């Protein structure tokens, strides 16, 4: 009972038509009605807005160990950052480091030895050309229109390409379940799961509520946060009138965190 080519094509055509027609009929009977047409999404009205969020770290305001501790603690407590107690697993959003690790490669000859011994406040630089965003295969790290390099923890698959791409070491990976290592869980912010990368997000959740980032509030003027594109903002005034440096500018990532070294009694 062999069939010839003509018969085969005819039968295949009939089966295809049946299949397509059947799916139309089933869709018609089940009647899709899952769209609530009138609903929409809007930004919160009290949220702070900017074209390019930027931060200035006033080195003169970070003198004692307590100045650093207070700022770091303000971030740790509201973002549920775990403390694993060992540097290999450490999760860092904002931290303190020495001159060599902060400004390696870009030695400015006019900086005094004094300056090179200072500790620095470090966080994600929210670069204008963020290499982590380019490296991320899932779009979990993305750049918002207001300049903030944000993390979508839902999408992170833990490949850690971003950690390799970031020249500032601003990203940390959850090798272990962080929940048992969080001192006190703040229920206003989610925790993370093992296999997710995290970093400073300039407190986007607080900006949406009309609040300044937690570290800025805790710094007593040591951290200044504002819109770099606004000529009247405090950050812009400082950057355009005083001497500031940025980390590893030779890499061309254009950090949005500026270090004010001219203020106070340093430099």
């Amino acid at each position, binding site marked *: 009972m062999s069939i010839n080519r003509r018969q085969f094509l005819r039968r295949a055509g009939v089966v295809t038509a049946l299949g397509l027609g059947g799916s139309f009929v089933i869709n018609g009977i089940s009647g899709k009605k899952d769209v609530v047409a009138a*609903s929409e*999404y809007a930004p919160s009205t009290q949220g702070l807005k900017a074209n390019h969020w930027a931060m200035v770290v006033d080195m003169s305001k970070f003198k004692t160990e307590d100045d650093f501790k207070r700022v770091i603690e303000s971030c740790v407590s509201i973002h549920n950052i775990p403390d694993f107690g060992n540097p290999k697993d450490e999760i860092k959003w904002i931290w303190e480091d020495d001159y060599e690790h902060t400004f390696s490669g870009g030695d400015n000859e006019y900086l005094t030895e004094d300056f090179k011994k200072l500790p620095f406040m470090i966080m994600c630089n929210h670069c204008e050309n963020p290499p982590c965003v380019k490296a991320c295969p899932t779009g979990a790290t993305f750049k918002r229109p207001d300049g903030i390099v944000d993390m979508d923890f*839902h999408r992170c698959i833990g490949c850690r390409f971003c950690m390799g791409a970031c020249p500032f070491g601003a990203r940390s990976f959850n090798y272990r379940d962080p929940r048992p290592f969080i001192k006190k869980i703040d*229920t206003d912010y989610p925790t993370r799961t093992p296999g997710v990368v995290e970093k400073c997000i300039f407190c986007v959740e607080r900006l949406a509520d009309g609040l300044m980032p937690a570290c800025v509030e805790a710094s007593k003027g040591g951290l200044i946060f504002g819109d770099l594109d606004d000529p009247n903002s405090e950050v812009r005034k400082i950057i355009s009138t005083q001497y500031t440096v940025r980390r590893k500018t030779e890499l061309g990532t254009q950090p949005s965190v500026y270090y004010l070294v001219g203020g106070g009694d340093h430099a």
Partner: protein
Amino acid sequence: MYKGGRIIASLIIFVAFLTLPFFFNLGKANAGPDLPTYASSSDSQCVEPAAYMKANHMQLLLKWRDSDVRDGNSVYINSQGKSFDISLETCVQCHTTQATKNTVGVNNPALNTSDQFCVSCHNYASVKPTCWNCHSGPEGATK
């Protein structure tokens, strides 16, 4: 057929075993999910009508997530023009039984044997949402 009798007899036994659960439960009514009674004012409506929420809450939650995290739009205006803050806390403000006090990180309201809102249906349907692996449970919303 070679050894036909044995083959057919074996097949009958096999089919009998296969359909045993079906005949065992024949005539018994399916109790359905153990729906919770939760602490909410009875006159209030969810962010959308209940029928819509029952069928589409998962799609709505995904849209909420993308809208809030990726687009920065943290307010949802529903089909009646009412505004809601996009957050799981908005959900659990009403959808909580408060019968079991959940300790965040220890007791998972969506997965463990609590009588919280999500778990009652989701256990029945054998669907395990991962929301509460990171987000805080009803305790946080009612504080």
